[in-house]
């Protein structure tokens, strides 16, 4: 049962070649990690460095990437290298009694081998230490370029096996980097895309003028963003593979905050062409525009409900920014806005969790701007961070983590935090310059 599910999923979303090792092996002693609010202890897991028997060093430290992924999730605490009692190899028998003396509940053993023509074979197995049973095993055949991606897919397999939730390590993040020179003329803004751990950065756009608000299309193939290259904010949509882009909105005034509808056909955005900031929906193919809000206050930062039947947005119609929800349909506005946030006097830039039950947003608390999670059913607002200048929170596609921008010792950095607040913020790889405006991609499908 478990395995047939795994097989069907693999065919869904992987471009890499891999298959189950030892099909037919049964899996009884699965130690599950319950993901509930308030759990305290992360699951200790041992990940042994993947064996490499050819000349030179291994082309990539797969185990280190997996360890970092799992640690970042907050759900696992991988053992350090000095805590490993042995370094068993695949195919050898494992002396589990030695591993029982560690904290670890699972043991991951793997190997990497050069199989010629620029390709590598990466294999791993995961064992339950208590029972000594193999509970997971996969093999990948990848190019050098895809070794890191294979490591993230291994992390996803381990995560899914132990939490019964799809992993989101094999995903991408988009963000903006600026070398924050005091002289505005010397600033360079870069829109980039990288793996979910911040590695393998690819540059999408470089500009002397600010870039804002990257937003992923639901199929992960396009980005909408705001660029000031025309000396004012306009909205572009760019295809990632070809680099081809289209200027979608350059009305008088502000063109900002593009967000894709779940069906991928529309962009919600903020335009001030009719006097002040209002929410609009634009059909991307035809350019047909629907006005959603109509108020003299600022209405901006739209985001779609996962069912596509409503938009949430920030409005200061009550005097201070708060989150509102308004029903929409194919014809545009389909009802009146309803206020969702009441706690505090500054709540903004909300987005829905994939299951539609939570909003992650920025809230002001004693003058500090922090990431908070709002449970819609109970209106319980949980502040997740302790920092001062948080911005741009977005959910991982599995809804378990939130990625956001913050400031550390004067520099813009990216952090991720478990959405239940169970761990401390995890800093993403520090890149040069000020990093801001992160957006987590949907699951990758190919």
């Amino acid at each position: 049962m478990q395995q047939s599910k795994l097989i069907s999923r693999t065919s869904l979303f992987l471009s890499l070649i891999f298959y189950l090792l030892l099909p037919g092996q049964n899996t009884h002693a699965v130690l599950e990690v319950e993901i509930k609010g308030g759990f305290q202890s992360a699951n200790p897991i041992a990940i042994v460095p993947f064996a490499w028997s050819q000349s030179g060093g291994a082309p990539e430290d797969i185990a280190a990437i997996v360890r970092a992924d799992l640690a970042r999730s907050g759900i696992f605490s991988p053992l350090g290298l000095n805590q490993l009692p042995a370094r068993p190899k695949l195919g050898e028998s494992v002396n589990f009694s030695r591993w029982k003396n560690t904290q670890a509940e699972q043991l991951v053993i793997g190997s990497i081998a050069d199989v010629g023509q620029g390709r590598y074979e990466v294999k791993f197995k995961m064992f339950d230490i208590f029972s000594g049973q193999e509970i997971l095993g996969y093999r990948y055949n990848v190019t050098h370029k895809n070794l890191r991606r294979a490591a993230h897919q291994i992390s996803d397999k381990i995560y899914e096996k132990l939490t019964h939730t799809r992993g989101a390590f094999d995903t991408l993040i988009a963000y903006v980097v600026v070398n924050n020179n005091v002289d505005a003329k010397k600033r360079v803004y870069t829109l980039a895309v990288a793996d979910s751990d911040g590695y393998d950065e690819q540059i999408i756009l470089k500009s002397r003028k600010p870039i804002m608000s990257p937003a992923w299309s639901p199929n992960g193939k396009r980005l909408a963003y705001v660029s000031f290259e025309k000396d004012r904010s306009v909205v572009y949509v760019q295809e990632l593979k070809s680099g081809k882009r289209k200027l979608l909105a350059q009305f008088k005034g502000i063109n900002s905050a593009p967000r894709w509808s779940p069906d991928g056909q529309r962009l919600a955005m903020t335009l001030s062409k009719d006097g002040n900031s209002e929410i609009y929906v634009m059909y991307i193919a035809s350019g047909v525009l629907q006005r959603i809000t109509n108020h003299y206050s600022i209405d901006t930062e739209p985001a779609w409900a996962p069912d596509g039947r409503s938009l949430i947005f920030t409005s200061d119609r009550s005097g201070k920014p708060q989150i509102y929800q308004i029903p929409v349909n194919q014809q545009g506005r389909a009802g009146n806005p309803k206020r969702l946030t009441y706690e505090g006097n500054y709540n903004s830039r909300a987005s829905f969790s994939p299951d539609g039950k939570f909003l992650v947003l920025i809230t002001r608390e004693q003058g500090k701007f922090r990431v908070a999670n709002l449970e819609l059913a109970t209106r319980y607002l949980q502040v997740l961070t302790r920092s001062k200048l948080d911005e741009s929170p977005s959910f991982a596609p599995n809804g378990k983590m939130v990625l956001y921008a913050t400031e550390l010792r004067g520099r813009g950095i990216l952090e991720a935090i478990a959405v239940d607040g169970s761990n401390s913020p995890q800093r993403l790889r520090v890149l040069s310059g000020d990093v801001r405006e992160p957006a987590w991609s949907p699951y990758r499908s190919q």
Partner: protein
Amino acid sequence: MNIRVKKLPVLLLVLPLSFLTACTTIGDDASGDAAVEDRTSGAGADGGQNGEGYEGQTGGYSESGMSGQSMSGDPLSDPNSPLSIRTIYFDYDSTMINSEGQSALNAHAEYLSLNPDKQIIIEGHTDERGTREYNLSLGERRGRAVADFLSASGVPGQQMEVRSYGEENPVALDHNESAWQLNRRVELLY
């Protein structure tokens, strides 16, 4: 108006060049610096056409920099004119124009009314606190507050364009109140 015109030539003679350039470093857009270049290029296209009462003159200053220089005829390039105030500052989360800002804007309103061929870009900015897209709209609201003030003082709408950079174009990069004060601003770009 007359008073200012009479005073100007006297004051200009004693102004060292360094002061002239120091006044114009805030603009972060090439167009904001255009007025500076007018000064040394002698009588510009606007010289003597603006009804301001004095002729454009060819500039020139001594090597020592001690003696004064003459100006082109446009008070826009006069560092002692209230028109040299091109930045209006705001309180946190506010679009209120303080009295200092109002007196500068009164001068701009007068100048723009008398020079219907002049255009300005009114560029709104915020500090870094709060979310970026909301701040982009807040910057526009500040710009609009300035445009409304100028409009109420008789400047036709077609001479003005409001733009916003939100928190994206700070002039001070620190993360404290003194930096934030400098960044909460509207810039007037001729």
